């Protein structure tokens, strides 16, 4: 009898053992599922974080490249990454390849970003004509269009800016025809203009730039150094001599960064020569008191077109055409004189033209500007992500 009981007990224990082993195996599988799922998510997070870190490194150092794979430990996992120049989707881009491993899981993310030296429109350019002062007299009776234009003067819908952006009240005292874009709606140039194309009493809250460098988000002195470099036709003049009322010493057509520093208190005028004047044209001194009484062109040998960005402290009598934008830095612009007879000239906002100008500045300086967020408030634009 005892033998039978022993058999039953041993059989029961054996069954219990088998059950336990099976149960352990199933529990192990369940645990593995959870671990796999966690590792999968973790490797994805690590890869994504590494991409963000590399984008920040690129923002800080435009020349940052890692052409052969580099390993790095991050958040308990291991990543290998490379950062290379590439040509993708008909564009010259930076390819960032990140492979993250965590546990048994591997995640690869391939990111294609713009080269940070690509041009940009500085966010302080809020209109075809932007100032932190009264613009009533300065804009005269020109044609001013904040709608976006390409380099062939074709309209680019909905991507434009205000016609005029000023921190004071605005009255169109000289009957300028003004158009622009507001909230993705384009308004053609009219007189009287529609209210939507004017931004008046804009509160900069101390954020208005006080120097050309600040417009681009550059450290002070950067644009002057760029101009002195001579790259892309850049030029720098300090208190240039006058021939009659016009400054002399520039080589035309101007291009790149043309920086004219005026510290002698004299009033200047500029007369553009030849066709194809482009880039960033700056008249400035540290006190924002430089005065340009006329921005004109030689009708005998120039088309009078500046493609890019005109930056002045004070300027008046703008008798040229500008495809890009105008930004004036002085808080004291013209409030008494009038400049009628300027009805044959225009300022058309062009993001393409401004981007071309800032791209050259970025290529000379290696700085991509104060745009967006991130370390140094710079941002690398991401075009494609394969993850």
């Amino acid at each position, binding site marked *: 009898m005892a033998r039978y009981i022993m058999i039953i007990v041993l059989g*029961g224990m054996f069954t*219990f053992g088998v059950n336990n082993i*099976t149960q352990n195996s199933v529990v192990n599988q369940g645990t593995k599922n959870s671990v796999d*799922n966690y590792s999968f998510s973790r490797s994805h997070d690590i890869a994504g974080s590494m991409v963000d870190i590399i984008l920040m490194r690129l923002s800080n150092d435009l020349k940052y490249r890692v052409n052969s794979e580099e390993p790095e430990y991050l958040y308990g996992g291991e990543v290998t990454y490379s950062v290379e120049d590439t040509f993708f989707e008909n564009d010259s881009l930076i390819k960032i390849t990140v492979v993250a491993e965590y546990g048994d899981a591997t995640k690869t993310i391939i990111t294609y970003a713009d080269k940070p030296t690509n041009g940009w429109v500085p966010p302080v350019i809020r209109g075809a004509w932007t100032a932190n002062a009264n613009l009533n007299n300065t804009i005269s009776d020109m044609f001013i269009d904040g709608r976006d234009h390409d380099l062939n003067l074709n309209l680019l819908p909905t991507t434009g800016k205000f016609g005029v952006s000023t921190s004071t009240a605005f009255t169109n005292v000289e009957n300028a025809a003004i158009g622009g874009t507001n909230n993705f709606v384009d308004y053609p140039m009219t007189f009287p203009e529609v209210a939507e194309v004017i931004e008046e009493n804009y509160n900069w809250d101390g954020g208005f730039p006080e120097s050309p460098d600040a417009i681009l988000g550059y450290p002070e002195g950067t644009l002057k150094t760029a101009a002195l470099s001579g790259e892309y036709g850049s030029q720098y003049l300090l208190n240039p001599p006058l021939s009659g009322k016009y400054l002399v010493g520039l080589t035309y057509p101007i291009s790149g960064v043309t920086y004219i520093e005026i510290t002698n208190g004299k009033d200047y005028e500029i007369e553009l020569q030849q066709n194809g004047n482009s880039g960033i044209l700056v008249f400035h001194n540290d006190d924002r008191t430089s005065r340009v009484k006329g921005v004109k062109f030689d009708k005998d040998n120039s088309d009078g077109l500046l493609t890019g960005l005109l930056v002045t402290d004070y300027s008046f009598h703008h008798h040229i055409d500008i495809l890009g934008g105008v930004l004036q830095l002085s808080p004291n612009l013209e409030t008494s004189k009038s400049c009628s007879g300027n009805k044959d000239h225009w300022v058309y906002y062009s993001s393409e033209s401004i981007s071309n100008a800032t791209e050259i500045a970025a290529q000379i300086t290696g700085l991509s500007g104060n745009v967006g967020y991130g370390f140094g408030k710079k941002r690398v634009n991401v075009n494609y992500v*394969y993850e």
Partner: protein
Amino acid sequence: MSYLLDIVGSFIIAGMVIMILLAVNINNSASSSVILFTTIEQRKIKDLSELIEYDLYKLGYRIPDEKIAIADSTEIKFYADINDNDLADSIHYYLGEITDLSSTTNPNDRPLHRQRNDQNSLHSQIPVVDFQLSYFDSIGNSLDYSSLTSSAGRDLIKSIKIKITVESDEMYDEKYRTSEWKKKISPKNLR
């Protein structure tokens, strides 16, 4: 007499040991089965979630124009270059009817269809009991399904929240074993 008491006592003790062993074994078997069914469901939902993540994270990759064609509560169709071979693919997830899945005893399960490039040869279906999608704009506001019938409305989608519930095909202990997965995915190509 004492001999008889020994035998009776032994029988009682042996009986108790056997009963305990039986009870332990029965409980052990029951919990093993529950764990087994649950683990199977976990595995199913893990594989399914990996597939959905694989697809959704690529949403819009190398697609210059319309990236999402259909966005509804139980259906999404989008475009992406899934294989990174410079060819746009369409991926279509949609929930079938309960009657479409009669091969299981579970009365609640239905097929979740995944069709690639509208081709029947690239069509698969996974049994689920629930598949819910909700959509959010760039600042995290939930988008109403009625606004997503237009292309302009779908252009506002920046994040997609997915909820999937699966149940075991067969009942055990009068219950279907359930697993649920939820995730909010923000495809980086939706910018």
